[in-house]
């Protein structure tokens, strides 16, 4: 899933301050939890409370889109609500506000989320962990299913660096050494030869910016 977190509320408040009639647009898509109606409604309540403290009154409308990255779905979901609206506060990942800006050029679009990475969730602890940066050159086949781009603090493609202690990274005692994980896993699979081969540094220049998959 795409991992986002709500921006600090004072930052959101400052961004909406110049406007009065605001549409809070949730997104039911890929985040966990989905920033749908519940998040939108909760944010509305919080911003109204904040406004009361600071003597500012807003008129909020609240809705949610199935996927804000989809132009058809976003147009049909937002259109019925935008009459009289000055600004749209989007609860989607970084793609959502851009889509809304493109579809409704007359409206101010403000993001409510900071988008971090694509990751995996430990729901019990409510913790999200990075798993993918979208490098465009997946090497999980060779790495026994463990991504060194995201899981090694140094993003080394030829590990290990030698700094790990008791399986933990020297930069953070909470973080597993990705290269130890890769080594153990490949050893178990009998495929240690996979990491004999030198891997050149990631080439940032060839990354696709447009695709027709």
């Amino acid at each position, binding site marked *: 899933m795409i991992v986002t977190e*709500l921006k*600090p*509320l*004072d930052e959101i*408040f400052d961004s909406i301050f110049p406007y009065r009639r605001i549409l809070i647009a949730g997104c*039911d898509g890929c985040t966990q*939890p*989905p*920033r*749908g*109606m*519940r*998040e939108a*409604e*909760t944010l509305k*309540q*919080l*911003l*109204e*409370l*904040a406004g009361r*403290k600071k003597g500012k009154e807003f008129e909020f409308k609240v809705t*949610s889109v*199935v996927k804000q990255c989809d132009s058809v779905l976003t147009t049909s979901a937002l259109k019925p609500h935008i009459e009289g609206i000055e600004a749209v506060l989007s609860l989607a990942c970084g793609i959502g506000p851009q889509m809304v800006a493109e579809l409704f050029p007359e409206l101010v679009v403000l993001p409510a989320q900071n988008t971090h990475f694509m990751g995996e969730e430990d*729901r019990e602890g*409510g913790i999200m962990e990075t798993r993918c940066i979208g490098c465009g050159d997946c090497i999980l086949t060779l790495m026994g299913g463990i991504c060194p781009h995201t899981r090694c603090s140094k993003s080394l493609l030829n590990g290990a660096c030698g700094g790990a202690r008791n399986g933990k990274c020297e930069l953070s005692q909470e973080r597993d050494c990705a290269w130890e994980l890769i080594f153990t896993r490949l050893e178990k699979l009998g495929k240690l030869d996979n990491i004999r081969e030198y891997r050149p540094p990631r080439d940032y220049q060839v990354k696709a910016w447009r695709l027709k998959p």
Partner: protein
Amino acid sequence: MTEAVTEERLAVKVDEEQCSRCSICRSLCPYDAISKEAGTGKTLLDIAKCQVCGICYSACPSRAIDIIYYDLDSLLSYLESAKKKSASQALVIMCKGSAPDFAEVGRLFGVSDFIPLSVPCVGRVPDEVFLTAMGMGINKIYVLACDEDYCRFVRGSPLAGRRIFALNRMLEQLGYGKEAITLRRNSLKVKVNKDLCIACGNCVYYCPYHAPKLESEGGISIDLDLCRGCGLCVVMCPAFALELEHWERERLSALVPQLLSEMKPPKLVVFRCQWAFFPPLDGKLNPNIRAIDVPCAARVDPIHILDAFQQGADGVLVAACAEEDCKQEKAGGRAQRLVEKLNERLSQIGYQDRLYFCSIAPRHGDGFDKELQEFSQKIKGMAKGGKK
């Protein structure tokens, strides 16, 4: 609230004089809370282990065990004063665990005017209450009990069924008609609005009882036999697609402003797990405090806490059972995390130190009062500090 609490009020007591030392209670207690004193044979109760289920109370042949929540004198004096105030000849006795609000209970039985008696478990209500009520001029008693499988008070619900059967036979012979007491079973269940469901799977993960399932054609289905009505999925649903029957979001959202309009400042609102505290029947309302008893701490919803602040609450307290006492699955811990998370957000907008969490247990009759006292002092202190 104003009185200083001097001695702990324990919910369960063993009367040594009456105890025949038969040990039936000890053999039945599922929590190992009862033991026999070596040498004397005295019955000892370890209140820390007790869950106030009342099986010992039901089973004691010598009536040596007392539970404050079923104390005959207080139940009867409640009935007497309620009868004086009401012209109704119907009494409804209901389990807290299965009962919606009084209006809905009335609708379930098709009676509009009745005397309500809400107890932790109807299976523990002494026979005298039924018989005395009939003697007082009540001609119809309705009993709302939990479904047998959902009883949280060890065999209380099946016992209610057997007792009412026997009482009805007796009342019939005494000329009170064929079915003087009507028993109905009910359990709180979740319901899905398929139009709102976004098939995210949150409920599937969070449900401790594996009741919801994701369907291949999209959306979810819920196995209601597995659902235990805690309401966790409702709070975790990002799309408002789930509701706990009779405890709908809108219904609670409407209740909050109604309660706050009755209150005087400083206004303190409590969201309380119904299993964590059993309010006294003749409890007087403090104009500063209103409590909303939710079916489980899992149903405490940030939306309603924010509703309370929006309607002018000065402080909100969430009172839950400790994890080890939880009648559902670890709901208390979840409620605590929810409060922490919401507090983080509230402090960003200048509403810090207004929302608190506490865990309490009905084994201590005054546990809640102590927490409430502490909480109201914090809020009152804050209100004063803010005026400087």
